[in-house]
C-alpha cells in the first residue's frame, strides 16, 4: 500500500517549482532526498540548495500544500536536512533541459578547482561566453554574457564539495 502512495507524492512534487525558477521542479533540482508515509501522515526530507536561500520557506509551504492534496494524506511534514549536502550535479537531465529552455544555462559539470568554468550560451549554444559576475540576482545564479549572439544570460552556479 505504501509504494503507490509514495509514487503519487513524487508525482505531486513534480509540479512544485522553485518560485524563482518556475519551470524546474524540486524533484528535477535534486532537492528531494526522502519521502516516507505512516498511515495518513507523510514526511518529506528536503535538501536546501543554498543555506540562506530566502525562497526556502515558500518552497516548504508549496511542498506541504501539494503533498496534503494527495488522496490518502492528511498531514505532511517538510524537514530540511543537510546530509547529504546538495550539490549542483543533483539536477536531473530533465532539469538541465528545462533550465536551458527558460534561458538559464545549467551548471557546468565536473568543475576543476582554480579553472574558469566554461558555460554555453542557452540561446545560441556558443561557448564564446564571458563570466561577468560569479554572483547573480539569486544565490544560485551567476551572470554571463554571450559574445557570439550578444545576449546577457544567467547560469546556475556550480556547487560542489571542495
Amino acid at each position, binding site marked *: 500500500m505504501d509504494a503507490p502512495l509514495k509514487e503519487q507524492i513524487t508525482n505531486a512534487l513534480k509540479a512544485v517549482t522553485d518560485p524563482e525558477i518556475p519551470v524546474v521542479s524540486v524533484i528535477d533540482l535534486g532537492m528531494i532526498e526522502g519521502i516516507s508515509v505512516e498511515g495518513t501522515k507523510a514526511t518529506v526530507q528536503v535538501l*536546501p540548495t*543554498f*543555506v*540562506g*536561500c*530566502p525562497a526556502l520557506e515558500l518552497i516548504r509551504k508549496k511542498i506541504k500544500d501539494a503533498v496534503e492534496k494527495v488522496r490518502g494524506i492528511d498531514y505532511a511534514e517538510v524537514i530540511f536536512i*543537510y*546530509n547529504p*549536502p*546538495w*550539490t549542483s550535479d543533483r539536477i536531473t537531465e530533465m532539469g538541465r533541459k528545462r533550465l536551458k529552455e527558460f534561458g538559464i544555462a545549467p551548471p557546468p559539470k565536473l568543475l576543476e578547482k582554480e579553472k574558469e568554468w566554461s558555460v554555453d550560451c542557452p540561446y545560441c549554444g556558443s561557448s564564446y561566453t564571458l563570466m*561577468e*559576475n*560569479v*554572483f*547573480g*540576482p*539569486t*544565490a544560485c545564479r551567476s*551572470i554571463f554574457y554571450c559574445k557570439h549572439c550578444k545576449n546577457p544570460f544567467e547560469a546556475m*552556479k556550480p*556547487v*560542489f*564539495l*571542495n
Partner: protein
Amino acid sequence: MTSVKNALEARQNKEYVSALTELLFQLADDDFILAFRGSEWLGLAPHIEEDVAFSSITQNMMGHAFMYYQLLEQLGEGTVDELAHERSGKKRKNAIMLEKVNGLGTYLQSPKFDWAFTVVRHYFYDVNKKIKLDCLQDCSYEPLKHAAINIRKEQYYHLVHWETWFKQLVKAGGEAKTRMMVAVEKVWNEFDDVLSLGPRGEVMANYQLIDREDVIRQTFMNTIGDVFENLELGPLPKLKEMKKSGRIGEHTEDLEKALATLTEVYKKEPSSSW
C-alpha cells in the same frame, strides 16, 4: 571520541554541551555581525557588479549565522529569532574586529565607508573561516559537521572574491596600495580576537569539536604569510595583544549601535513572523 549524533545525545554530557554551545555562539555571532556590516554597503559598493556580489555574499553569510543559531535552538538556547535579536551585547561572542563600523558616517547619514578596510577585514576573516570550516569537517558533533560541509560549498566563492579584490588593489600600487596598507595595519592591530577560541578553546579541542587554537593560528599565519610574500609586502608583523576580547562578551560602542539598528523593527513587534 565517538561522534555525537544529535542535541539529545549532546545534552547527556554537560561539559561537552557547554563547549559546543560556546563554539556555536562564536561561529554564529561572527557571521551575523559581519553580515550586518556587509548589508550596510547595499547600494554603496564601488560599482554595480560589486553591489550584486557583495549583497549575495552577505545574504549567504546571514544564512550561515542562521544555521548555527538553528543548532543552538536545538540545544535549547532559545529560538533563532531570540538568539539573533534579544541578546544584549554582553552575551555576544563575536570578535571585536567584526563589529567595527565600516567607516565614517552611517548608512542613513553621509556614509563615507572605507572600501579598503572592508576588503581586508572580509578577506582575513574568510581565510580564517575557511580554516575553521576545514577543521569542522571532522567535528564530533554531527549536525555541526554537516552544517560546515554545506557552508563551505558557498564560502569557497566568498574567499575567491575577497582574495581577488585584495590582490588586485595591492598590486595596483599608487593610492590603492597606500590605502590597503593602512587598512591592513588597522585590521591586523585587532585581529588577535578573531583567531581566539576563548577561554574554553582547549575543552573544545579535547572533545574534537574543532582543532586546537594554536594549530588554527599557525595555519592562518602560514596562509597570510605566503600571501604577503607573494605580494612582496615583507614579513608578517606580529599580532598585537588586545585589552578586550569579544569571546568573553567584551565589546565596543559600535556593537551596541549596530544592535540598536538591527533589532529596531523586531522590537516593535516581536511576535510577528519573518
